[in-house]
């Protein structure tokens, strides 16, 4: 078990270090998400008082789209220089590789969400009643998206059409997370946290199930690429 954790940390550390060096998430994905929020404002006309009401939904759409890019990037890294074979040969436990990658994507997305949310609260003029719920639901939602995304990342790995296939594969699957995160955030903004409880449960169940699926499926999926 300890070995799994240390291998997981090794893989996550590698991915995060690559991000620190290449700054793809900070310099490309974050501005993209910010631009999406801006575009929503163009589409929905800020003067009609609509934006604060729909802010959670728009935020999570933007985050989901950013998540697609983050997952895609996490697997694009392994396409260089035969790194995927290198990982197979390394003797690392595939479960550790999966968990490490999912962890790295989760952390990057959480950082992105923090900045994006701050920006959104300012742009859309939103007030927050319950910050704890906001953070909890964001954490669960992100973990779920990263877990499912990492499985599909492996499924689509090495395919020429990965960029267009991954969204089609991943978005329907994370629909429940989208629902849950939006409703939970609405409850957090409006100050009715008890309404969010079933949604928190849905997201937790989703995250657990898909993490388990990933741990089991990643090994076989890595082989015979």
């Amino acid at each position, binding site marked *: 078990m300890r070995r799994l954790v240390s291998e997981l940390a090794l893989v996550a550390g590698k991915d995060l270090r690559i991000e620190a*060096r290449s700054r793809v998430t900070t310099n490309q994905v974050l501005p993209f998400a910010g631009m999406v929020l801006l575009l929503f404002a163009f589409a929905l006309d800020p003067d009609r008082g609509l934006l604060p009401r729909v802010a959670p939904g728009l935020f999570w759409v933007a985050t989901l789209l950013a998540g697609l890019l983050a997952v895609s990037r996490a697997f694009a890294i392994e396409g260089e*220089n035969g790194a995927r074979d290198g990982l197979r*040969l390394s003797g690392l436990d595939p479960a550790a590789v999966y968990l490490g990658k999912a962890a790295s994507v989760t952390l990057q997305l959480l950082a992105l969400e923090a900045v994006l949310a701050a920006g959104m609260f300012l742009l859309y003029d939103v007030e927050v009643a319950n910050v704890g719920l906001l953070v909890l639901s964001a954490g669960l939602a992100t973990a779920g998206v990263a877990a499912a995304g990492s499985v599909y990342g492996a499924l689509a790995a090495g395919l020429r059409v990965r960029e267009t296939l991954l969204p089609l594969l991943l978005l329907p699957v994370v629909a429940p997370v989208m629902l849950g995160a939006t409703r939970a955030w609405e409850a957090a903004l409006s100050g009715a946290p008890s309404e969010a409880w079933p949604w928190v449960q849905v997201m937790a169940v989703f995250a657990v199930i898909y993490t388990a699926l990933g741990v089991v499926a990643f090994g076989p999926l890595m082989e015979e690429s």
Partner: protein
Amino acid sequence: MTVLGRFPALSGVDLDVMEGDAVLLSGPNGAGKSTLLRLIAGLVPLTGGEGQVLGRDLARDRRSFRAEVALLGHDTFCYDDLTAAENLRFHARAAGRPKAVADAVLERVGLGRSANVAHRLLSAGQKRRLALGVVLAREARLLLLDEPHAGLDAPGREILDGAIADAKASGRTVIVASHELEQVRALVGREVVMAGGHASGGLVAEPDGDLVGV
């Protein structure tokens, strides 16, 4: 017979290698040398015949011995955005070796001064040395080298030959696939010729000691 997916790339390979042996695989292009090395590394599934590597069954357990095998192939298995040192440390620690091993290997392959240069910016010759470094940093029992001399300059070749000699001396098993027949023949104990997916030329294996066989 060995079939790669539905692609018959190897057939009629009958090979026995004892632990501690150094073997040269020679033959023309397309003979299946690379495929055989990848098969032994457990990367490619064995779909006909039987095989054992380091005591583990190739057909069933091909993931289990990967930590003890190192393959030097055409790719470097490195990440473009990480430095030479970071890449080596990652591969060393993935194989369960401490960072210090990686740093020592970095010096040994002559990349000490490029330690903090990103992989992306290394020259082709430096990348080949780094790939060799990855193999050495893993401190594996079985080394599989596919055309290791290709892309190395003269000092690099010296380092490579030294590494092969050291591996032999420390009891590791080395299988080298190469066109550099003169150079490698001097280093190894025997030669196996491959052609059209077949291999011939095995020594009789002693019953003692671990058997690395296909």
